[in-house]
């Protein structure tokens, strides 16, 4: 029997003081109690704001990147004997109402990982330039790893304990999303894509991954693909 207190939400946060209270309120109001915020060496008052909520706040002494923050969150959740870990962005792009759909395939043993996909059902108002970048990235993922996911860089994912123990995230930056896809392929982890909504605001577009950043991610993945 699955216990809801074994669900942990992991939020990597870097300088998110302005929106993280809304994200935490959304999650808490939807009944999620186990929330882990990994402050990735923020230089603003993110930590001070998070301390006002009843959540676990882990602080990286220096900024390491979202991949490293997710890894810290997963390792801590595993220490707490989490059964399902949900990675959730701190910039207000994700909605707590999507979580039940995301975890349902894991609870029903249909998958070990569920990947949020903003393109299924087209519920998100994705800007055109973002769509082009994401689709190109997804095509490159298909060429490199043979997995066709139209939204490989969506931060909203649910990971079961069994999958978390198999996946080894080595990348510190945004390329961790591609690395998870690679690990799914290499370790033959059962996955399902679930439609989710991604809210776009001026803030999230400004904070999110830039075009030049996508070139950097591709070059890093390519180097890793060649050199291992």
């Amino acid at each position, binding site marked *: 029997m699955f216990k809801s207190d074994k669900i942990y939400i992991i939020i990597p946060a870097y300088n998110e003081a302005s929106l993280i209270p809304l994200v935490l309120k959304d999650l808490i109001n939807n009944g999620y109690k186990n929330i882990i915020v990994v402050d990735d060496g923020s230089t603003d008052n993110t930590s001070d704001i998070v301390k006002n909520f009843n959540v676990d706040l*882990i602080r*990286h002494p220096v900024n390491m990147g979202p991949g490293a923050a997710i890894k810290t969150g997963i*390792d801590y959740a595993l220490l707490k004997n989490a059964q399902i870990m949900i990675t959730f962005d701190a910039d207000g792009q994700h909605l707590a109402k999507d979580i039940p759909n995301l975890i349902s395939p894991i609870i029903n043993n249909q998958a070990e990982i569920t990947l949020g996909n903003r393109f299924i059902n087209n519920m998100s108002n994705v800007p055109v330039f973002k769509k082009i970048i994401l689709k190109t990235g997804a095509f490159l993922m298909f060429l490199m790893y043979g997995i066709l996911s139209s939204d490989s860089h969506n931060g909203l994912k649910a990971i079961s304990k069994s999958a978390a123990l198999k996946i080894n995230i080595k990348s510190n930056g945004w390329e961790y999303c591609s690395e998870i896809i690679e690990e799914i392929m290499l370790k033959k982890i059962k996955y399902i894509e679930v439609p989710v909504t991604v809210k776009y605001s001026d803030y999230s577009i400004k904070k999110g991954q830039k075009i030049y950043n996508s070139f950097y991610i591709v070059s890093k993945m390519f180097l890793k693909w060649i050199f291992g």
Partner: protein
Amino acid sequence: MHPIYIISIIFIIAVIINIFIKIKDKKLILNELIFWILIIIALILISVFPDFAVKTAHFFGFKSGFDFFIALSILVIFLFLFNIYKKIRILEEKFTRLIENIAINNFINSSIKNENEINLKNHKDENKDI
């Protein structure tokens, strides 16, 4: 004498001085020593037997010794780059694990400390009531 041979001789002397300084300071590791000895041998062969470079280049299908030198340099640089990339990745992974452990341990320790403080406060309050 061709200028390249004068440069080679100066370079050989500089490398030998560098090796002696490092041996004196006990800073030279075996791999490094082997690498520099191979460089010195190659430079001596080129300087003493000028035809050697040309013949070697022709043997490997290059038109001139210079082309061969450039191709070989690119190969050596690529190997160095590969080695450095690997080392940086390993160091980055170790550093990340270290930061992660520090972050989790700090949080667990602060939680235990807070819990102890609350327990102590409750204990004091109970004693007051008695």
